[in-house]
């Protein structure tokens, strides 16, 4: 078997925090505990779990923003936490991330065109003209008009900003995209648009996506496979459709029940 695009091998992360103000006892949070997963090219995998289950921590370790206490993250077979900073920077071209909150993920003082081409410019030197061409094409890709090139983030709506973030992540043509609650901050209609967009882009560019969410409906719409996380561990994994229709783990069933309940209220 060839090496998968991404291979996460038994990564763990423990946060140490002081307990109460007076007890002085150390309180350890096992944010991520012995998690293994792997993604092949073009895989779209959902990662669901309640708040605090360690999804973001896992994503930050995969993308290299955080160091695992143990275990390793292999990108095309290379351990991203063992290589030098320079090498890691080069690997960023393969792996990008879209953040949860589109209101904080863009520098408020950076124009949209500069934001979109920034990752690309980090790896290639481009003339001003080439930059504009790239930025226009990237905006087209995510369904935004070229007039937004010269806008600042505060002039855009949440959905538009999230599209800009997606365009920025895709500008270096990565093989793997991590989306940490990338649609959670958006309302339902915009959410659906962004999900459709992600699906289109995924097919066009043969992207592998790790889609983190606590919204099972969104996951169902986008993903082929599903991982269920609870208290830092993956408790169930499998085909998305099958898992959602007949979950075996009681926690997954609980999650499903909770989500259906919410949907019922919404209607």
């Amino acid at each position, binding site marked *: 078997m060839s090496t998968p695009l991404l291979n996460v091998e038994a990564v763990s992360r423990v946060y140490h925090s002081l307990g109460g103000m007076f007890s002085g006892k150390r309180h350890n949070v096992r944010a991520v505990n012995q998690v293994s997963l792997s993604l092949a090219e073009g895989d779209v995998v959902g990662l669901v779990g309640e708040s605090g289950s360690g999804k973001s921590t896992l994503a*930050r370790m995969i*993308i*290299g*923003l955080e160091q695992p206490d143990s275990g390793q993250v292999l990108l095309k077979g290379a351990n991203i936490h063992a290589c030098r900073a320079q090498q890691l*920077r*080069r690997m*960023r*071209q393969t792996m*990008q*991330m879209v*953040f*949860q*909150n589109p*209101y*904080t*993920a*863009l*520098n*408020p*003082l*950076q124009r949209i065109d*500069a934001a979109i081409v*920034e*990752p690309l410019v*980090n*790896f290639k030197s481009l003339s001003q003209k080439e930059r504009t061409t790239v930025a226009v094409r990237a905006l087209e890709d995510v369904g935004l008009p070229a007039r937004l090139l010269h806008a600042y*983030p*505060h*002039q855009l*709506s*949440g*959905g538009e900003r999230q599209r800009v*973030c997606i365009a*920025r*992540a895709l500008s*270096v043509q990565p093989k793997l995209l991590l989306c940490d609650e990338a649609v959670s*901050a*958006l*309302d339902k209609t*915009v959410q659906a648009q962004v999900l459709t967009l992600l699906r289109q882009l995924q097919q066009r560019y043969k992207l592998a996506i790790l889609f983190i969410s606590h919204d099972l409906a969104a996951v169902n719409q986008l993903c082929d496979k599903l991982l269920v996380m609870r208290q830092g561990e993956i408790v169930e994994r499998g085909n998305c459709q099958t898992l959602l229709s007949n979950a075996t783990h009681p926690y997954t069933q609980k999650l499903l029940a909770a989500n259906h309940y919410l949907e019922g209220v919404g209607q």
Partner: protein
Amino acid sequence: MDALSTDKGQVPEYFRYHQKTALLRTFLRHPMTRVGLPGLLIIAIAAVLGPLLVPYGADEPDLAAIFAVPSWSHWLGTDQLGRDLLARLLEGAQVSLSVAIIATLFATVLGCLYGFVAGMGPVWLDRIMMQFLDTLLSIPVLLLVIVAQAFGESSVLKVIAVIGLASWMGTARLMRTECRRLMAADYISAALVGGASQFRLAITHLLPNAAAPLLVVVTVGVGQAVLIESTLSFLNLGVPSTLPSWGNLLGNGMSSLLGGAWWMVLFPGLMIVFTVASINLVGDGLRDIVDPKRRAGL
């Protein structure tokens, strides 16, 4: 409707204005700026145009008018060599202000570099660098400067270097705090994920977002530098005594005060106070606009 459209709390307050002109208007209407800004303008115009308008040269002795009392021919009087005090004060404005501005720019660059390294580096390095900064800050600046100036020939360049070296610490601390604060922002994480180098992070993301508080520190810093320069020159430790800096004029006046030449002390003194006060008022106005908490408390 966009659920989050009203929740834009993450955007800096001073940037929420949709037009930069609105921000400028707020700044210009601020009570502090209303007093300070015209003051600064007057000083700047006087420093640039003044020497051309006064009919005397700054170094033009007139032995017929030694220690002349302020009059229509010499508005602010003359000194022991009969040189016109007004001409000397205006010439001195150029010396004192350029020394203060260049020294502050030097201190700003130094402070920013130090702040970037401490604010973006690992925690252990940050601890060491901040400890060092605290130690430096516990030494009285003036003492430091006086000791430094007591050695070697006095020159303008040396004064600039010494003032710069004595006043970068505030900027460093500010920059470091801003970096630590901003490094937690999602857009910094996004930039890192995008492969941004430390240099790019500092220049395109951290510096612009810290620019507003930095501007306040720089403005107030220029006022401080004017004071330090005056003090040094007054003590004969500043710019060469042949140059008519405000501190030199004041020091020179003090030695003539016993002879009754009050104008030689009063006018340089007023000039320094007026300048520093104007700069500080503008700095306060800027601070109130930049810091929303303070503005709310107005």
